């Protein structure tokens, strides 16, 4: 524990360097704007701005990109409460009671509770990350190829199980991602695969053109500007402080949401979306006045907002400690670290302590910055919400082209981005979530290498995965999850996905 505290102190020394403070602030500000603006999610925001970080060192880059991620969770609540439009997917639940509070003249109180809840959850998440990640990394050092293969299989199945679209759709997307990840030179044999004599494809398809295309351009193609309209309720600064009853009603939901969010965050899947939905359901169940939910219940804002922030921090645990992304956003952040020559995983704590501890400490600072940013600057964000989308999206397309081109100075990458944009548009039409595709693309090289190494180690015996306790345990969990999915599939039971779809449908109708 002493060594952890010493390392954390070292991290604070790095985080408090003026450059790093500036990039944390910039990340938080941009993240808040990304969360505030409807149509730009955290994933597209991070993907578009990823190339901007290439001039920075690894610590500064990850500090800024993580700031965008957790900043967007804060910012999403502003649009939900003031406009009843979820700025990003995890804010759907906040729309319901947050906007109802705003209509009652309590917009300021709802924003304040959301910001304080997010801060408490974010800070708790970082404390837990500080405590959990280093010991987990020590255990992960003992992992060999079979364990990594089993862990990645579990990750994919968990993602499919917890994803907001159906199991088959998620697995299909992951398969397409895995196939895209296999384009280029095979590391073990040197064969060129599916490169169609294009030298640029020799190194494979990068995560940046795929993520920017699917989430940045794809989102723009499916969002005509006349669809982005809404009335903004502008709160006054003096109305920001909640009254005593509202504080009292928010303590426990913030606590429960924080804990629930962190646990769900560690599990692969769209953690920040699932956590806010489950937190809302939990609060309604434990409430003495469930009839108030939907009409401006404080717990309906405090719980989900805390849960999605805590989950976004929890998602960093497997990414930093195991080198396994649990969702598309950690996958893009992993890609960013790899671009800077830093491989996330068990060795990160020992080989790059400046990056790891600087990043962790910057999150403490970033959460404070966000609390300071979100409340006093609410009028600025209200002004941003009034910029017509028609003026905004050409700017985003310009940054997409510029950003993707700058990664490798390759126009082929920009064409890939355009193709992925069209693919993203088509996938949305057919109700496919493109997020697992990005995850598949990132894990494809690690998965292929560990699977082939395992088979070579065992002379082609598949039982190697069941003869080692850790990999056997992980695969048994995978099989159990598949069996649970099969039960839901055969009995046609409603699960949380159907309930979330009903809530979203209700939101659209209103």
């Amino acid at each position, binding site marked *: 524990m002493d060594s952890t505290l010493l390392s954390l102190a070292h991290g604070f020394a790095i985080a408090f360097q003026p450059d790093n403070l500036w990039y944390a602030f910039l990340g938080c500000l941009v993240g808040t704007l990304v969360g505030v603006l409807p149509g730009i999610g955290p994933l597209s925001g991070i993907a578009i701005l990823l190339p901007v970080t290439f001039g920075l060192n690894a610590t500064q880059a990850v500090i800024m990109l993580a700031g965008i991620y957790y900043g967007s969770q804060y910012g999403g609540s502003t649009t939900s409460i003031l406009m009843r439009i979820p700025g990003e997917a995890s804010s759907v639940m906040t729309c319901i009671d947050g906007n109802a509070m705003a209509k009652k003249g309590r917009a300021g109180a709802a924003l304040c509770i959301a910001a304080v809840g997010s801060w408490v959850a974010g800070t708790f998440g970082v404390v837990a990350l500080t405590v959990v990640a280093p010991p987990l990394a020590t255990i992960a050092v003992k992992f060999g190829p079979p364990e990594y293969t089993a862990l990645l299989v579990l990750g994919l199945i968990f993602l499919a199980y917890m994803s907001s679209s159906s199991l088959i759709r998620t697995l*299909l997307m992951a398969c397409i991602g895995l196939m895209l990840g296999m384009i280029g030179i095979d590391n073990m044999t040197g064969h060129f695969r599916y490169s169609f004599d294009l030298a640029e494809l020799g190194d494979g398809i990068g995560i940046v053109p795929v993520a920017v295309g699917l989430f940045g351009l794809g989102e723009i193609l499916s969002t005509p500007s006349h669809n982005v309209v809404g009335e903004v309720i502008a709160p006054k600064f003096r109305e920001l402080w909640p009254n005593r009853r509202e504080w009292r009603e928010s303590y426990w939901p913030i606590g429960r949401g924080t804990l629930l969010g962190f646990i769900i965050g560690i599990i692969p899947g769209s953690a920040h979306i699932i956590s806010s939905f489950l937190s809302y359901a939990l609060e309604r169940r434990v409430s003495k006045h469930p009839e108030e939910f939907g009409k401006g219940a404080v717990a309906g804002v405090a719980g989900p907002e805390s849960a999605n922030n805590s989950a976004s921090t929890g998602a960093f645990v497997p990414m930093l400690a195991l080198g396994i992304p649990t969702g598309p956003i950690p996958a893009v952040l992993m890609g960013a670290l790899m671009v800077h020559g830093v491989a996330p995983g068990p060795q990160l704590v020992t080989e790059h302590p400046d990056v790891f501890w600087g990043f962790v400490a910057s999150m403490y600072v970033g959460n404070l910055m966000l609390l300071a940013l979100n409340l006093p600057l609410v009028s600025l964000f209200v002004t941003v919400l009034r910029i017509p989308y028609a003026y905004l999206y050409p700017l985003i397309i310009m940054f997409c082209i510029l950003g993707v081109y700058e990664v490798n100075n390759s126009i082929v990458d920009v064409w890939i981005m355009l193709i992925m944009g069209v693919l993203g548009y088509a996938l949305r039409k057919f109700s496919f979530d493109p997020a697992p595709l990005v995850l598949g693309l990132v894990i494809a090289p690690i998965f292929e290498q560990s699977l082939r190494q395992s088979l070579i180690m065992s002379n082609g015996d598949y039982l190697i995965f069941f003869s080692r306790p850790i990999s056997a345990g992980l695969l048994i969990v995978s099989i159990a999850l598949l069996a649970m999915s099969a039960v839901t599939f055969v009995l046609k039971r409603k699960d949380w996905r159907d309930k979330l779809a009903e809530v979203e449908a209700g939101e659209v109708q209103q």
Partner: protein
Amino acid sequence: MKLRADHAAGAAFVVFGLVVIALSGDLPVGHLSMPGSGFLPMIVACLTIIFGFILIVRARESGLFSDLNWADGKHALMVTAITGAAIALYEHLGFIVTMLLMMIALLIVIERRHPLRAGAYCVAIVFLTYVSFVYGLKTPLPEYSF
């Protein structure tokens, strides 16, 4: 039988899987004790075909193909065409000219915004971005090269 959205989507995935298998013809699959470079692509392509078939079999749960809303299709097509043209010209006309033309086309042709206001906005944004990247971030951007 009515054509449903998942019939079309599932069929597209089956065809995609078959195309991957066809393209993998010259890649050695190897054997279990020494898997080749075509080993995993073959497994994943087969899984894609299987999942595609499951999607087709369960297509009754999806909406009708004819009910898919393509109202935003024209907007998507125009944005794609303008973005494609900008990408084709990017390395030849350079950053400033290409981005100015692209933004003006998006704002005036698609969004029908006031030409003067849209033009001023585009000039300001493109020059600000150019200066920030070239002088602020020391990142060279493509120049006119005809």
